[in-house]
C-alpha cells in the first residue's frame, strides 16, 4: 500500500537504465508513515507488547499494591504515576518480557520506599478498611464487613515488614510466587515458606484475640 503520506525518495535518485532491468542507483525501500490509529508498541527482547495492553493489565494492580503499602488513595495515585513514568523511561533496559510484571512491581516497591524515606508517615493498614469494600455492596454489608476487615488489617499490621510485603504482593498485586521472588530478590521456595508462615501467624493472632476463621 502506498498512501499519500508515504515517502518516495526513490524517484529522486533512482536511475534505471532504459530498456533493461539494471538499476545503477539503489531504489530505497518505500517507507510508510505510521497512522495515528496504530497502537503504540514496546519492544522487550524479542517480544513486542502493545502499550495499552500493558497499561490495562497492570495499572489497577500496581495502584492497589501502592494503596496497600502507603494506606492512602491520594498518595498511591501520585506514586502510580511515578511508577509508570519510570517504567516508560527505563523499559529499554528490560531484557525479557517474562520479567515485566516483577520489574514493574519492583519499581512500585522502590517508589513506595522512596516515599517512606521522604515522608516517614505513620501508616496503618486500618486506613484501608473503608477502601476495601466492593462497589456493589449494600450499606449493611459494608458495615459488617468493615468490622471484620478492621480486625484482619489490624493483625496484618503486627506481621513483620517482610511478611506484610509478601502478603501485599500475593493478595493485593496477585503476583505468582516466582514473580514475588524476583521483586524481593529471594528464592521462590522462600516466598512459599514466607507466605505460609505469615498466614499461620495471622491465624494464630486471630485465635489469640478470640476471633475465628469461617471454614
Amino acid at each position: 500500500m502506498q498512501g499519500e503520506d508515504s515517502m518516495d525518495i526513490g524517484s529522486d535518485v533512482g536511475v534505471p537504465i532504459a530498456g533493461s532491468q539494471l538499476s545503477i542507483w539503489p531504489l530505497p525501500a518505500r517507507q510508510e508513515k505510521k497512522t495515528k490509529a496504530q497502537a503504540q508498541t514496546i519492544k522487550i527482547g524479542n517480544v513486542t507488547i502493545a502499550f495499552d495492553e500493558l497499561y490495562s493489565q497492570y495499572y489497577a494492580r500496581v495502584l492497589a499494591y501502592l494503596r496497600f503499602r502507603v494506606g492512602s488513595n491520594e498518595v498511591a495515585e501520585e506514586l502510580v504515576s511515578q511508577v509508570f513514568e519510570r517504567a516508560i523511561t527505563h523499559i529499554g533496559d528490560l531484557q525479557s518480557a517474562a520479567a515485566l510484571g516483577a520489574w514493574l512491581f519492583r519499581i512500585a516497591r522502590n517508589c513506595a520506599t522512596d516515599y517512606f524515606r521522604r515522608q516517614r508517615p505513620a501508616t496503618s493498614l486500618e486506613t484501608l478498611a473503608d477502601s476495601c469494600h466492593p462497589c456493589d455492596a449494600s450499606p449493611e454489608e459494608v458495615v459488617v464487613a468493615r468490622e471484620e476487615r478492621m480486625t484482619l488489617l489490624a493483625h496484618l499490621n503486627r506481621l513483620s515488614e517482610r511478611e506484610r510485603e509478601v502478603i501485599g504482593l500475593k493478595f493485593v498485586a496477585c503476583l505468582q510466587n516466582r514473580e514475588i521472588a524476583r521483586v524481593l530478590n529471594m528464592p521462590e521456595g522462600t516466598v512459599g515458606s514466607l507466605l505460609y508462615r505469615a498466614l499461620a501467624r495471622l491465624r494464630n493472632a486471630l485465635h489469640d484475640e478470640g476471633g475465628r476463621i469461617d471454614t
Partner: protein
Amino acid sequence: MNDELPESEHSWLDRLDAIVEGQQAPAPEDDELLHLAGKLAATFAPLRELDAPARTRKQRLGTKLRAQLAASQASRARRWLFRPLMVAAAILLFLLLGPGLIFEISPLGQSLNHSNRTVVGWQMNDLPSVDQYNMVSPPTFPKNQPLLLPTGLGPNAYIVALNGNSYGSSTPILSYLVYTQHAIIYESPSNPIPPQAFQDSSYQVVTFNDQQGFISSTGDGQTRLEWYQDGLLCDIVSNILTVNQMVELAGSLKLTNL
C-alpha cells in the same frame, strides 16, 4: 501450632494460587490457612477496583504516558541514528552516494595508459589502480570539466575527488573515475582512437550511438569496454555487468559540464 510449609508443599501452593486468583473458593476440606487466604483475597480485591474519578485519572495518565513513550522512542531512534556519526556517514555514503560518482585526477593517466594509441597494431594498456585515485571534496572540483555521466542523478548525488599532484609534469594530466553501483568508469581527455585500431582482431568491437568500442578482459578477470567520445577516452570495467549492460550503460552516458 506448626508454622512450617506442609510436605505437600506444591499442592498447597497451587490451591493457594487458585484461591487468590479467584478460580476456586476454599473448600471445607481445605485447611484453615487456605480459608484465611480466601478471606484476605476477598478483603483486598476491592483495592483493585477503580471508581469513576480513578478511571478518569487512569485515562489521563495513559494519555500522558503514550506521549512520553512516543517522545522516548523518537529520541532513542535519533540517538541510534546520530551517535555513531562516522558509521552513519559511511552508511549514508553507501546508500545514497556510493553508487554515484567519484571523480579524481590522475596525473599519470593519459601518458601512462594510452601513450601508444597511434601505433599500428593497437593494444589497450592496463588501467591504473583505483588506489591511485584520491577523493576530495566538491569545492575543489575542477570547474567546467566535461565528463560523461549517468543521466538522471540528483543534484547532490555525487562526490568529487581531486588529486592536484602533477607528478613532475609541467601540467597535471587529468583522469577521472566514475563509480556506479556495478561498474567503474575511467575517463581521460585524449586524442581519438586511430581508425586502424579497429582492424585489430584481438578485441571484440561493439557499436553504440554511432560509435565503436572494444570489449576485452582485464588482468583480474573483469570485463572492460573502451571507447572514445567527446574528447574523452573512456573505459567501463565491471565484474557484474554483462557486455550488453555495459554497452547500454555507455550509450546512456551524457556529456555534462561540472
